[in-house]
């Protein structure tokens, strides 16, 4: 009796060591941590797909108006099935937002915003996921459910792999991520469903995806189209791109540059 129990404990001990060592070996295998799917790509890009080495965005705050802000958020949330917990249910705690307007002093807390231009004092500016070149959210994710796409630098999410630990939300220094505290469909916060984009379940994190699904169809991000020219999207690695020309001609800043996250969203002030 005593003996068999001891043997059991021994076997249990060895198997734990085995499992531990096994997972370690898998963990240190030379796979790139930036790629989420472990299988080779089975699908080809469409010929019309837009491609870049590193997608980036320039926001010209001088051209931003509150109407543009409203239009951008509306179209973004509509095509991405983002539920409206605040407007429809008054549940501020469960708010989900991908792009939203906020005062300059909140978007750039590291800047001394006391004496900014009248335009910036009056008008809120849009904030969204910065699609950082060195994203802390990707670093902290324990399942690689959020990952940086190697081909074009987009920081994306696999909603079906996410375990909902919300480590990425603590890791993101821009507050760009939202959590599905409830099922968006059951609660009435989502009434019109866009069939061309995935629905989320409760318990997963979501955020702006730079309209990866539209880029694949050869379309620019929806917010860019709705921005009346205030937002410009393009390849940061291509010196001849419109976005690079804009950056060369204007002084632009990124949010919390001191953190070394290397954002891909630039603001012309």
């Amino acid at each position, binding site marked *: 009796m005593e003996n068999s129990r001891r043997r059991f404990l021994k076997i249990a001990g060895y198997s734990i060591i085995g499992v531990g060592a096994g997972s370690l070996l898998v963990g240190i295998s030379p796979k790139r941590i930036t790629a989420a799917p472990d299988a080779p790509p089975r699908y080809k890009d469409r010929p019309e797909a837009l491609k870049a080495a590193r997608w980036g965005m320039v926001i010209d705050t001088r051209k931003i108006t509150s109407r543009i802000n409203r239009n951008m958020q509306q179209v973004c949330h509509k095509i991405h099935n983002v539920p409206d917990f605040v407007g429809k249910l008054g549940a501020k705690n469960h708010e989900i937002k991908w792009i939203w307007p906020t005062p300059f002093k909140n978007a750039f807390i590291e800047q001394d915003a006391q004496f900014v231009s009248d335009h910036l004092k009056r008008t809120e500016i849009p904030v969204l996921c910065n699609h950082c070149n060195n994203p802390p959210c990707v670093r902290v994710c324990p399942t*690689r459910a959020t990952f940086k796409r190697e081909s074009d630098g987009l920081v994306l999410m696999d909603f079906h792999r996410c375990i909902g630990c919300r480590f990425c939300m603590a890791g993101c220094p821009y507050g760009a991520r939202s959590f599905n505290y409830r099922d968006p469909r059951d609660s009435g916060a989502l009434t019109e469903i866009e069939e061309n984009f995935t629905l989320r379940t409760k318990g997963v994190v979501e955020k702006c995806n730079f309209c990866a699904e539209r880029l694949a169809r050869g379309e620019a991000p929806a917010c860019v189209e709705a921005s009346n020219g205030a937002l410009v999207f393009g390849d940061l690695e291509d010196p001849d791109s419109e976005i690079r020309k804009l950056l060369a001609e204007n002084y632009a800043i990124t949010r919390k540059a001191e953190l070394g996250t290397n954002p891909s969203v630039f603001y012309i002030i």
Partner: protein
Amino acid sequence: MLEKALSGSKLYYTLVLGLLALIGIGFLFYLNQLNVGLGVTGMNRDVTWGFYIAQFTFLVGVAASAVMLVLPYYLHDYKEFGKMTVLGEFLAVSAVLMCLLFIIVDLGQPQRLLNVLLYPSPQSVLFWDMIVLNGYLFLNIIIGWNVLSAEKEGVPPEFWLKPLIYLSIPFAVSIHTVTAFLYSGLPGRGFWLTAVLAPKFLASAFAAGPAFLILLSFILRKFTNFDVGQKPIQTLAKIVCYATIASLFLFFCEIFVTFYSQIPEHMDHKIYLFFGLDGKSALVPWMWTSVLVLMTAAVLLVIPAGRKNEYVLGLACIFVFFGSWIDKGLGLISGGFIPNPLHEVNEYIPTVPEVMVSIGVYAIGFLVLTLLFKVVVGVKEEVKG
């Protein structure tokens, strides 16, 4: 040995049944949370970790404290701790179990938990936390159980236990270090972004854990025939004393760096916790209570006459445990999220379902602790004969 946990006094059965009832209630609340989502908690878009993760963080400290018995006993051959060491190990078992459960109840998609193993991601600190927590849990089960059965049989412990025991010492340090790294490695969270977070965690763990062990030995002495004796308690009291002072010292280091440098991103969290920010001040009375009781305890314990008086010692231990619980179990997690990265203040207050689920998890931990301690007491009585 387990049969020792099956028979006991009426009081013992009442305790076990009471804990089972609490577990049942907590489980019902958890089923509701599973059904509705984490929206039943008070967490929001800004404060994305709440009561659950805070309890996890606090209990990691309680678990790590077993090393304060194991290290002197096995490395320095401090014989006085011989009777108590297994208590520390079993306390660690129940505490780590609660830690793991608190992480699971905090997950939005718990049924996908094994994705952590399926897609192992060593760049994530959570991956390492999983390894050290599980490792520490099994080390303590194996060590505690085997040492106790050897004692029961009157034979020396198996030879292969020694390396495991030595291994459990760095593991104890690592569980709390890695847990601190979960927070202190995040850019843009000024409250946690400090190198003293891990040392501070360890110091407060080595205060709160042994304080709890002292209280547990008082309870065991009152309700059973098992008395660990004066000397180990007094040694533990000194450990509690200096660990409390060390954790207060590290706290003051943080306060100095933050408020002398006057960097807003670091100051504002502490201003929120201790004075309130933008008219939001839910945690202010708690935080001052925490500092006050910890300082009182340090004074009571550092005076030899205070430490040697069991009533004073008991009170000081309650203070240390409660003060550390407020610090880690309430302030640490919310404080890091308030204000948010856009400098907006959205407060967090746990809801009733959240607290009920937490009570359920605590009840599971205390049930395991009760059963294991019952076995210990049974074996010790039998050996004493």
